[in-house]
């Protein structure tokens, strides 16, 4: 575990930069992590992020299939929102741990 200051807030992050404590997440943190990845966040992105945070809090094992069935965005849309890492980037920006799922 390491300390990192994101958007002016000191947070605990994993070696890969995922927030250790989702409660420390703010929209500003999301914007900054997304900026590092190269993604400009829109309202649609935030809808996905909120969904991921809610599901994570409920203890769900996240998969792109679950996001695709969320009614927010289909899988193709998820790839468009988070190119090159539909689940890993979205989870990182949402301030939740890296999903361990293979799907």
């Amino acid at each position: 575990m390491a300390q990192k200051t994101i958007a002016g807030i000191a947070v605990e992050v994993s070696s890969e930069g995922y927030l250790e404590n989702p409660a420390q997440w703010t929209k500003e943190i999301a914007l900054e992590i997304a900026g590092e990845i190269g993604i400009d966040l829109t309202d649609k992105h935030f809808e996905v992020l909120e969904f991921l945070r809610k599901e994570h809090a409920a203890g769900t094992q996240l998969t792109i299939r679950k996001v695709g069935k969320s009614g927010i965005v289909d899988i193709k849309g998820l790839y468009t929102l988070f190119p090159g890492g539909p689940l890993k980037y979205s989870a990182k920006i949402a301030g939740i741990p890296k999903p361990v799922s293979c799907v």
Partner: protein
Amino acid sequence: MTIETKERPLKKVCIICAKGTIEDVYATLVLANGAVMEGIEAKLFFTFFGLDAITKKQMNKIHTGTVGNPAMRMPGGLPFPSVLGMLPGVEAGVSAMMKSQMDKLDIPPVDEFLEMITAGGGEVYACKLAMDMFKLEEKDLWDGCSGVLTVGDFYAMCGGEGTQIIFT
């Protein structure tokens, strides 16, 4: 090791699936889906019995073999005698059980899995020789197929730095 993988990351996987059992087909699909989820390009080439996975009539009816599979066990871990696997309905029953286990892990049926892969930019191809052998036509194939290729066409897609060919 770490340095090397950082300098030369995997950019593309070309996956060949020549068998039509649940384990062979799903190995292909999981590898391909995992690749596109990591931003790695994926090309899938289905040949011989692997064609079942992209044939409309067969794709959601694939089975696992219950005969001659020493790793096969009863629920609970007791050995699964091949003789039992020969009985009518056993292969179907075992296959249905495997599919229900996979469904619990959010692993979708074959057609939906292929849609997930192509949604991420993966491409699915059929082998021309095997198509001719099994008397299949393009209309028999899953609609998301990008085309029918000769082995030469397939190799032509497998070039480039950071590319690996995987035979499942």
